[in-house]
């Protein structure tokens, strides 16, 4: 069980775990019901230095709150000011002023496509790896190596993943995944970007799913074997449904990572602010094989340091992006709260 708090990316899962009580015996059982020391001693008897320290704690805590509030409020004000519904329905166009150059509908849709494709790729693979690690995990050496691999993937800078992607997806063997011209493979497509983004989301999903599976007591599995179920059937019918909240949490954390990434999209997808479908391919494939854009890419290019330099529209797109992230956060919270109410094994 020592790996139940593995990946450094399982931030939210671990945070929420604090409230539930960390499963798997990683925490001494009495950690949760520490006596209510707060009522016992106030800070009035402390020395000045200790009190200054506590004041510094309060200052930093309030500073964090202030930063978060000011980010949200600032983007809200800018968003209300500059965001128009028409921007979400009109694609970007060439133009000299912010009024002429259209909206960012392609970027918005691109983000949705990337999120959907990335998560459909990452979720099954991540869950499968977690199941293997927790339920099978033989030989031990391979399990150790796999843990290391997942940890290493989590630690790879996304720009390095992006460069690796350029090597894979410009190979002629994979030319069917992007545009190719006279034998030269372009290598930028939704397929290329979303598969590398899936790699980025994978460690989060694995870590969260492992936590969920580790939290299920041994006797549940034994009861299932006792009535004659195979290991595979137990996993599918008992373990995965029980760990569903954690899997969902991991998926949403991964989705957040996919939506928020810029470096991979810049290298493996961007190049335009519009879809550029490949000619001669059937409908969804022609768009997915072509280059495109996403909200993060649009914000990057529209910021004063980018190529477009349209700060107003950058604010508007950033506001939409922030709303997506906030929505995801709220959904993650909801899943956790519901899991707590319904009562999973992690109690």
């Amino acid at each position: 069980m020592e790996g139940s708090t593995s990946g450094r990316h399982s931030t939210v899962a671990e945070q929420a775990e604090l409230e539930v009580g960390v499963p798997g015996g990683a925490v001494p059982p009495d950690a949760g019901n520490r006596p209510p020391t707060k009522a016992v001693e106030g800070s009035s008897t402390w020395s000045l230095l200790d009190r200054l320290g506590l004041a510094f704690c309060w200052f930093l805590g309030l500073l964090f709150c202030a930063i978060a509030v000011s980010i949200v409020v600032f983007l809200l004000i800018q968003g209300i000011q500059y965001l128009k519904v028409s921007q979400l329905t009109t694609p970007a166009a060439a133009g000299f002023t912010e009024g002429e150059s259209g909206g960012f509908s392609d970027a918005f849709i691109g983000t949705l496509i990337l999120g959907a494709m990335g998560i459909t790729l990452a979720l099954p693979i991540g869950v499968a790896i977690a199941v293997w690690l927790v339920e099978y995990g033989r030989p031990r050496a391979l399990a150790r190596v796999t843990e290391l691999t997942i940890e290493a993937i989590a630690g790879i800078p996304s720009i390095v993943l992006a460069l690796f992607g350029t090597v894979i997806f410009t190979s002629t063997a994979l030319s069917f995944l992007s545009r190719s011209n006279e034998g030269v493979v372009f290598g930028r497509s939704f397929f290329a970007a979303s598969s590398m983004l899936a790699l980025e989301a994978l460690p989060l999903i694995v870590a969260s799913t492992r936590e969920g599976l580790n939290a299920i007591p041994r006797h549940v599995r034994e009861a299932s074997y006792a009535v004659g179920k195979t290991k595979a059937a137990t996993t599918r019918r008992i373990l995965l449904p029980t760990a569903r909240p954690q899997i969902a949490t991991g998926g949403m954390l991964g989705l957040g990572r996919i939506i928020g990434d810029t470096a991979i999209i810049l290298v493996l997808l961007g190049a335009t602010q519009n879809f550029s479908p490949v000619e001669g391919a059937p409908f969804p494939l022609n768009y997915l094989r072509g280059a495109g854009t996403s909200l993060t890419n649009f914000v990057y290019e529209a910021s004063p340091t980018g190529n477009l330099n349209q700060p107003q529209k950058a604010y508007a797109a950033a506001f939409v992006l922030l709303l997506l992230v906030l929505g995801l956060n709220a959904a993650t919270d909801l899943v956790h709260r519901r899991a707590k109410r319904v009562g999973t094994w992690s109690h």
Partner: protein
Amino acid sequence: MEEELQSEYGPKWSDQRVERMLGALVLAMVALLLALIVTVFINGWPSFAHNGLSWFGPGGSPDDQLSEVAQSAEGGAGYVYTFHAWPLIWSTFLICVGSVLLGLVTALFISVFLIEFAPTWMSNILRPVVRFLASVPSVIYGLLGVLVLVPFIGNHLISEPQKASVAGIISLTGYSLMAAVIILTIMIAPLMVSIFTDALSSVKAGWLEGSLALGVNRWRTIWKIGVRAARPAIVAGTVLALARAIGESVMLAMISGSTAFAPNPADGLIFIYEPSRPLAPTIVKSIDQLSSPPAKATLFAIAAFLLFSAAMFSLAGWATRRSMAKYGAA
């Protein structure tokens, strides 16, 4: 039901087959990682081979060198690989160490506050806030940095005499070490807080109670007993944050100033206002030159350097955590 039984007991989902399928997937993942490492190093090798150890050393401007390298593909006179990355490495070092140190102090105090001192209403606010700050996309931090923090630093913090004093060398506009460090701290501190609070909350209650029973006040108890017991997790969290900071590219590409300049602390405090550019943003900025083979080798060499250092830090953190899990303290 009949069908379900079939599928559960039938040969299709037999245990051995499932185990083999999952095992194959896991092996594929391991192979993919190995392929990534090998690919990055092989592609970057020409740049290392031509420069030797001077790749890491100073000498000339990496910007000029990079554009020369990129253009040498068209000249026909053979590829040029000369590249001395020191200003970029130095900038990476300054920004990462600065923000990790700042983040360490911040995260420690906030974690202690969250675990021990914050009233319930406060921790109910602060926990989601920390989670939120960790989940804001880096490009939004970059945008806010460019449009809010950078102009503020440029217009209000840097005085005119300071600008004039370095006018011949570099122009101070607000794109600076300071802006980069501040924003990077906000990005990595939440990560550290989540690891630290985990560790602090799993310190055995009896240890803390023992200290309290001896008459030590709560503030000193949590620092002398709690934080000390959680030290390995604190080291691990710091190292992981360092790995994250090294890999940050987009936000830094936007606000670090994008000139390969090495700010010199010996110049006095003015160096925190000077622009620079770390390694990862260099790749982002030069990504269009990927079609030229020598430039590609140079960029992959940078990526290999990043990969190596980030992996080393991640592994160090993982090993620390793992070794302490034995004692139940992490």
